[in-house]
């Protein structure tokens, strides 16, 4: 088959834009970046084969501006658009617009996206395909009174979810009716801002559950493969923080069973390209399908490391009309991978966003370590976009090796100028329940991880030999340095060292 795609516009920014640029380079395809006013100095602009200005900083005027992006795609003469994740990646209107302009949208067809994006329609289809789903409300709710009624029936606590959300955004917990009413307003405002619609639905909140998802790929010839699971149970406010594969609770039989269910799920919506079927797993080991994420996931590198398959390049080849080049039984789960999302948030301070210039940074490297990031010394973390600054991914021949490598890499990772979630992950990597694989979506609260992190920092700071004494030494050096510089403006190191500083 001859290749239809020779150039790709990347309708995204940050680390995922860079990830896609690298895939294009490997394949010898031209990469076209877009950038907002806020992103002129961003790494995806520097690394792409060409870069077009798309608009002001605000996402609605830049990375969500479908018409402008389509204009650029046509002007640049690209054959395809890769949407990355977030932004327009699950927007069926944009997929349609691409179809209309004869530009290949690297992702599912708008029809399938419409089905996966509407959680209620999707749930119905899943029931027909005998895919087990979570007990909950049966339709979209626009009105707070109806939401309250359904919640009362299902029993609190309930989750309030945006029908257009995903990746944990637009999901809120309500423990009673008062909270429900407050959160409903917030959630619908958020949903409107992000997706232009406010459709919400209500779902019973299951407790002590794990989040386990299956990576899927499906080609235009109807071949479907699952690339094993990822466990993403460590979350904060329904946002994933740490993902891993394999899941500590998975057995070979269970993997095959749920993997086949996941394949039925994407077959049911005539899915195309890479997607993810998300499941909740209760402490009894029951799996409930919750949704299909119709895009490449943030956490896709975890799967890449344990399968050896480059998902972005596979996406491009599927979009090109090619058949998936491997059979289900060809795939082997090799070793163990963990991903930590390095967010620009202060874990010591309620995860408050932290933005600004990063004057210096040191990316970890070495055996088993992969970093996907947009950080470089002198870059800026913008408040206009997502807080994800880097994904740190470790591979090991088993979970323990992967965990120890992650621990080291977190120690090596320096990001100056902003606060990040790195200290939290350092604590988790040494935490007993994590080591034993005792995970659940309320892991942080259940095991008081934030408190543990704070205590650890205090202990570390009180270490006499490694912290207290060198700190005193620093104070002595600094005071002497100031004294010397006051005496002489030369103050070179040599002068200083042999300056007869005997007391």
């Amino acid at each position, binding site marked *: 088959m001859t290749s239809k795609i020779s150039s790709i516009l990347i309708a995204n920014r940050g680390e995922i834009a860079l990830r896609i640029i690298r895939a294009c380079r490997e394949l010898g395809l031209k990469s076209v970046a877009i950038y907002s006013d806020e992103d002129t100095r961003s790494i995806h602009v520097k690394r792409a084969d060409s870069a077009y200005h798309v608009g002001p900083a605000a996402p609605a005027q830049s990375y969500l501006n479908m018409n402008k992006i389509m204009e650029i795609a046509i002007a640049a003469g690209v054959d395809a658009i890769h949407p990355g994740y977030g932004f327009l990646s699950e927007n069926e209107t944009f997929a349609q617009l691409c179809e209309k302009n004869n530009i290949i949208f690297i992702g599912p067809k708008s029809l399938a996206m419409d089905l996966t994006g509407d959680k209620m329609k999707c749930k119905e289809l899943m029931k027909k395909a005998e895919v087990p789903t979570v007990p909950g409300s049966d339709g979209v709710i626009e009105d707070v009174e109806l939401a309250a009624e359904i919640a009362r029936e299902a029993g609190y606590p309930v989750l309030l979810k945006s029908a257009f959300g995903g990746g944990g955004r637009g999901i809120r917990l309500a423990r009673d009716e008062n909270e429900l009413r407050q959160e409903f307003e917030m959630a619908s405002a958020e949903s409107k801002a992000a997706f232009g619609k406010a459709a919400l639905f209500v779902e019973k909140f299951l407790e002590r559950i794990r989040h386990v998802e299956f990576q899927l790929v499906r080609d235009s010839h109807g071949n479907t493969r699952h690339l094993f699971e990822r466990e993403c149970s460590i979350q904060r406010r329904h946002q994933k923080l740490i993902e891993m594969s394999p899941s500590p609770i998975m057995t070979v039989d269970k993997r095959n069973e749920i993997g086949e269910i996941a394949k039925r799920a994407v077959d049911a919506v005539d899915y195309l390209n890479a997607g993810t079927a998300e499941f909740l797993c209760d402490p009894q080991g029951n799996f409930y399908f919750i949704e299909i994420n119709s895009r490449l996931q943030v956490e896709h590198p975890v799967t890449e490391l344990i399968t050896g398959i480059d998902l972005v390049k596979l996406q491009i080849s599927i979009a090109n009309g090619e058949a998936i080049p491997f059979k289900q039984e060809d795939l082997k789960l090799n070793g163990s991978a963990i991903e930590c999302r390095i967010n620009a948030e202060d874990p010591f301070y309620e995860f408050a*966003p932290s933005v600004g210039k990063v004057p210096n940074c040191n990316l970890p490297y070495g055996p088993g370590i992969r970093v996907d990031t947009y950080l470089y010394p002198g870059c800026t973390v913008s408040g206009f976009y997502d807080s994800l600054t880097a994904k740190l991914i470790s591979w090991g021949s088993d979970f323990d090796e992967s965990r120890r490598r992650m621990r080291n890499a977190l120690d090596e990772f320096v990001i100056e100028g902003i606060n990040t979630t790195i200290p939290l992950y350092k604590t988790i990597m040494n935490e007993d329940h994590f080591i034993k694989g005792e995970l659940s979506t309320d892991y942080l609260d259940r095991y008081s991880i934030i408190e543990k992190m704070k205590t650890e920092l205090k202990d570390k700071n009180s270490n006499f030999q490694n912290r207290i004494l060198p700190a*005193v*030494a620093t*104070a002595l050096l*600094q005071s002497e340095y100031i004294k010397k510089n006051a005496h002489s403006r030369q103050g070179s190191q040599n002068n200083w060292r042999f300056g007869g500083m005997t007391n």
Partner: protein
Amino acid sequence: MQIKIDEFSEELHGKIEGFTRSGDLVLKINDKEHLLKIIEIGTDKFEFIFDNKFHEAKIAESTSTELKIALDNQILVLKKHSKLSEIIEKSTSSTGGANSMNTISSQIPGRVISIAISKGDEVKQGDSIVVLESMKMQVAIKSHRDGKIRDLKVKEGQSISRNDVVAILE
């Protein structure tokens, strides 16, 4: 020099004693001697090997009584002549504390997308004052006590920084 570090209970005494023949510094801290080899020295950055362990210290803030450093990339606060500075700190923090009871400030940077109250409104503890948008999240800033709004310091659409005051209570 007398030094007190963060929550570390003990107060330490340190001084520079002199040089070894190989050019290393001899420091005396609490009557024990330590060797220090300077690797690099500058106004705001020191690299040294202390008791055979490399350390990097960046000076974040420096006053006559306080030194804030990033030692091996982690922040530490040192108080010099600590007895005096403790007294100063106590008197400052008590006034600071009284003031802060009246101000409602944002702990995060962001853009004000809505304001829930007006000047003169009565609010209860936990009531939302403004809603901020930051990194695609919406976060409400709530009142920490009951009271009446004396003044509003922000407008819709305005971008604010961490610790900016958004409203003042009477």
